[in-house]
């Protein structure tokens, strides 16, 4: 698994169960986005293979919806509604069904009544909600989220994390969520995969997060216990990444 001559990820093996919320946690430059891009079908692996429900992935497809970090994937010439129904329009669904679904998912992400606005008129948090609604409206098997809340302020991020858990529960989708934020991973995930520092990175270990909703709080003792466990695993990798970036 390598790019032109830079090997981002090597000997990477991971099984994600249907319906689980998997967080891939790693330092910057560890190749976590490369993993997501390969699953999304944007970059082919140079060796090895990726399967979803038994089928080998050969390119991008509507079965895997991608939520990007920034807002540059939205279409500013379309309204929020136009963005959300974009995939359905490309796939030739009739207009009435498109609108019905788009409105339903706009409501699910808390954007009812905002459908007529254009992305530049909306806040960062609302734009990420459009991205999520756009992906959900397409009803993919799997959601691939590449640090979708990294650019948001702390309060909006916390609100979005709560919303995302609700949406995940309501839809039962499989989620692969990329982040470098240990707190975020523990708040969201059912399992956390920690990556080695790059290059030629692979998975260092997987931690099960068995916390109730009430325990997914930074001040809770059991949360802190999981934090220690994750931190112990990623600490050395952070040190390596810091040394390399100097």
């Amino acid at each position, binding site marked *: 698994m390598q790019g032109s001559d830079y090997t981002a990820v090597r000997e990477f093996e991971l099984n994600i169960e249907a319906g689980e919320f998997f967080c891939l946690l790693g330092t910057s430059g560890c190749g976590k986005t490369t993993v997501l891009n390969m699953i999304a079908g944007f970059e082919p692996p140079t060796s090895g293979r990726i399967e979803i429900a038994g089928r080998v992935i050969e390119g991008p*497809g509507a079965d895997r919806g*991608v939520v990007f970090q920034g807002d540059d994937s939205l279409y500013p*010439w379309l309204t929020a509604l136009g963005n959300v129904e974009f995939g359905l329009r490309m*796939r030739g669904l009739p207009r009435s069904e498109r609108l019905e679904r788009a409105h339903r998912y706009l409501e699910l992400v808390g954007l009812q009544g905002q459908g007529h606005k254009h992305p530049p008129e909306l806040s960062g948090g609302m734009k990420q909600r459009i991205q999520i609604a756009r992906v959900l409206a397409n009803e993919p098997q799997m959601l691939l989220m590449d640090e979708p809340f990294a650019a948001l302020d702390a309060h909006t991020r916390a609100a979005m994390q709560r919303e995302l858990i609700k949406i995940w529960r309501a839809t039962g989708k499989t989620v692969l969520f990329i982040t470098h934020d240990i707190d975020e991973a523990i708040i969201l995930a059912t399992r956390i995969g920690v990556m080695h520092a790059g290059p030629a990175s692979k998975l260092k270990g997987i931690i099960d997060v068995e916390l109730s909703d009430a325990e997914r709080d930074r001040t809770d003792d059991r949360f802190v216990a999981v934090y220690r466990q994750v931190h112990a695993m990623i600490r050395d990798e952070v040190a390596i990444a810091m040394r390399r970036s100097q």
Partner: protein
Amino acid sequence: MPGSLARLIGYVIGFGSLFALWHLASVYLLNSVLFPAPGLVVAKAIELAREGTLWDNASVSLQRIGLGFCFGSLIGIPLGLAIGSFGIVRRILEPYTEFLRFIPATALITVAVIWFGIGEGSKVFLIIYTTVFIVIINTAAGVSAVAPNKIRAARSLGASRLQVFWYVAFPATVPYILTGMRLAMGNSFVTIIAAELVAANAGLGKMIWDARLYMLVDQIFVALLVLGLLGFTADRLFRWGIYAFAGRFSPVT
């Protein structure tokens, strides 16, 4: 509304001072028939407009610009889209655009007249020539400036490559296309006057050239004034278009 009111006041002050300075310079500084005051020029403009010569010449020039500009854009936009989208097309066409864009249309006036005659053909050819390269370069730059995530998002939402081109790359490029056309419009005004000065039967450039023969400086100034006004109006229309469509352009439904 205070924003647009401030803008209006700004315009009034700007244009007012321009004409006041012109008046002062002409009446008090130079006081020469070779530099007529704005009042005289406007009076002459009204006279020429009544005769019909002003409108005849202006409409001839505008028609040439309009025709050449439309054809130039119609040729330039698809070529720019193709150059921006496909590496092979870019490599084939880049020698043409990179070589020819440095030969100004004004340098081709004599050749154009020899090839297409003194009438409309040579003028429209020159306007097309001056338009097409700017539109191509801006359009191609616009295509390559489309955020890769816009295209990736569309692909994972189920869009085919053709749909990505038509529903994503093209609308995302529209603001760049309009910018290219706006620049080309400015160049068209330069080119048409130069072409009409050298060889033409009618037009604002021809009007300037004829006036020179009889030392009708006020008539020259009328042509200059009209040129300024027409150019300003055309540019405003374009800026408005860019403003209105940049964030809002939707090609379908």
